[in-house]
């Protein structure tokens, strides 16, 4: 509720944040309701498609192919976009991207912008940078507006305010739009947003958007949405600035026939979302007179360089993996400490941080595989999760720092103990003695340990541990032999 952007560099680690989130029963109820509704709808419309698996396969192959030839397709996009009147900018990282966008907004002569929902701008905290430069950004997607007015943080890639119910939204609108009489039906709330934003659509001269797809073959850009706020921002301003990750490129116009089938059904359970816009450069008399595209790397090339992690870049941001994930469904999105939550966030976020932050996220999973099954472009999220866990361990145990790593030290000690039978038996005896003060008997006389000290406490935080058996299998086996049975 702080209104501070979700930043993997400063957010608490997932186990801590999740524990706090689990106490918010209203949030859990709202998230469960919303994800249930989307999943049911998705199941129905995917079931209508006899060729769904063939579409998934084509989607996967198109995305893989794009990554293999990313340099060629980006240069082709730039050439074609420029040919039709667009201006292409390149940004190595978030800072550079923010500098470029802020400069372009100022050059447009405006100190206000209307914005379409965009995860990429959330990723780099663009609104904060604009605000610092004296530029006010109006979010125009209903959910983003709820988040912005409520000084909240997004909790889902597609439905960022799904953790809020109508009473909570009404309270925010009453306060921020000065509408004490506002009703609480969803229609009342949408009407209020329409009134509030129409004035901005007609007045503000600069728009900022993300992109769902950049089409290399034509230099065109495609955005899918449902409310019409996207069309407003793309069509009415004099200047349009589109910011996109370099992973958003598609080779050819024809490839839209695959992604435009996969994305809406996976994201919101719709056969097609209400609006898709495709525009190519600047068109005389139709839409903005100045059009800029900022192509941003921000560690995406790091991900590309990792053969196992590379498939993360295939993501088309549908959010289907969030809706099925048993972990996300309990904790909501904000516990992930990043605008990319759920299974895809658990693999994308640490990689976007070059594995320096958000290292607990690859562990925020039950590895049940549900996310892989629903992914429309077949990203094997469990495989990448395990790969990243390996990377985290290797990174933490490497060099001088590794010598002081308690977990690595414990593992080394374990390895030493397991190598020798004598040491193993001694450790067992020691364990039985050491556990004695911690063991409590239950009604049936079975011993349980509810609390372990230090690092071991992580295990007993959410479960009890049974006491060690009084007699080990080896002892029993040996006794049996000496007794001659």
């Amino acid at each position, binding site marked *: 509720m702080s209104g501070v952007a979700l930043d993997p560099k400063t957010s608490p680690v997932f186990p801590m944040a999740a524990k706090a989130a689990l106490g918010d029963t209203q949030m859990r109820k709202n998230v469960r309701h919303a994800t249930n509704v989307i999943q049911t709808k998705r199941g129905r419309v995917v079931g209508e498609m006899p060729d769904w698996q063939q579409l998934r396969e*084509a989607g996967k192959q198109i995305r893989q192919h794009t990554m293999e030839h990313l340099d060629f397709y980006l240069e082709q996009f730039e050439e074609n976009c420029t040919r039709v009147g667009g201006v292409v900018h390149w940004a190595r990282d978030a800072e550079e991207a923010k500098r470029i966008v802020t400069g372009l907004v100022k050059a447009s002569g405006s100190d206000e912008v209307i914005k379409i929902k965009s995860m990429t701008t959330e990723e780099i905290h663009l609104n904060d940078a604009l605000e610092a430069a004296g530029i006010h950004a109006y979010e125009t997607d*209903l959910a983003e507006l709820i988040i912005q007015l409520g000084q909240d943080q997004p909790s889902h890639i597609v439905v960022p305010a799904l953790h809020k119910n109508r009473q909570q939204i009404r309270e925010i609108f009453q306060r921020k739009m000065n509408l004490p009489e506002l009703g609480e039906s969803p229609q009342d709330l949408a009407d209020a947003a329409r009134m509030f934003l129409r004035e901005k659509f007609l007045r503000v001269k600069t728009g900022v958007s993300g992109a769902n797809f950049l089409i290399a*073959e034509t230099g065109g850009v495609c955005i899918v949405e449902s409310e019409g706020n996207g069309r407003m921002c793309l069509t009415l301003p004099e200047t349009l600035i589109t910011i996109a990750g370099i992973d958003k490129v598609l080779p050819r116009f024809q490839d839209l026939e695959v992604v*435009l089938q996969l994305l809406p059904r996976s994201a919101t359970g719709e056969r097609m979302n209400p*609006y898709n816009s495709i525009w190519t450069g600047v*068109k005389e008399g139709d839409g903005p007179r100045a059009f800029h595209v900022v192509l941003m790397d921000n560690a995406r090339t*790091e991900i590309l360089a990792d053969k196992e992690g590379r498939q993360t870049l295939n993501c088309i941001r549908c959010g289907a993996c969030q809706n099925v994930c048993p972990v996300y469904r309990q904790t909501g999105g904000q516990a992930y400490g990043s605008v990319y939550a759920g299974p895809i966030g658990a693999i994308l976020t640490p990689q976007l941080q070059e594995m320096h932050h958000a290292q607990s996220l690859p562990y925020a999973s039950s590895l049940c595989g549900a996310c892989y099954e629903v992914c429309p472009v077949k990203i094997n999220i469990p495989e990448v999760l395990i790969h990243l866990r390996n990377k985290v361990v290797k990174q933490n145990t490497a060099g001088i720092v590794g010598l002081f790593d308690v977990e690595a030290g414990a593992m080394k000690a374990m390895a030493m103990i397991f190598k020798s039978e004598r040491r193993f038996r001694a450790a067992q005896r020691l364990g039985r003695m050491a556990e004695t003060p911690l063991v409590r008997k239950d009604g049936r006389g079975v011993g349980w340990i509810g609390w372990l000290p230090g690092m071991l406490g992580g295990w007993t935080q959410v479960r009890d541990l049974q006491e060690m058996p009084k007699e080990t299998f080896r002892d029993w086996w040996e006794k049996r032999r000496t007794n001659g049975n």
Partner: protein
Amino acid sequence: MGTEMTVANASSAARTEILRRIRVAKGGTSTEAAAQSGWGHVTREYRRTSALETEALLELLEDRLRDYDAHVVRVGADDVADAVSKILTTRGKRRIVVPDGLTAEWLPEGFEFVTDDGMSATSLDAFDGVITGSTVAIAVTGTVILQNIAGQGRRAVTLVPDYHLCVVKATDVVETVPQAMEKLSGTSELTTTFFSGPSATADIEMTRIKGVHGPRHLDVILIM
């Protein structure tokens, strides 16, 4: 001038660096020939054709459009103006903007039709609605596609007014998304808008609400 030069230099340095990083990551530079050949090898075993008879195709489109809260009527080629008149009367719409090049025979007497001449968004906002033709419609998804050509016009015209009446020719209806994209392939650089029903949101408790920022009501006349 000085600042512009600096920005251009920075962007060019960033471009060089990003392309270098990509090439290092992949272990080489891609060529047009390699990209083309690789693209040709993508397996496309999904549905690309239709087996539906015309009647079944149109019924599917109607069903899917209604599912998206659009109102649909079918008429013969000579009865469009009559149908427009009835619908506008029922809706209580009188002052309507139309794009340049809209078929004149579709427009009935007794209403005020104003041709768009590049008017401002505020002027468009004062109209009761808009009437347009369409380029292609996709039955399986309930989608109609508009492009910036005669009779369909620029994007703002179908966006700002509160109401949209769209005329679709039966001959322009296809079943699947790939068939529609094939029809659009020759004009892929035109400004293009797909719409499936009126503007909608499900952001509040996943309840579908019609009409947020675009037209709140959509009627479709299907010409046989």
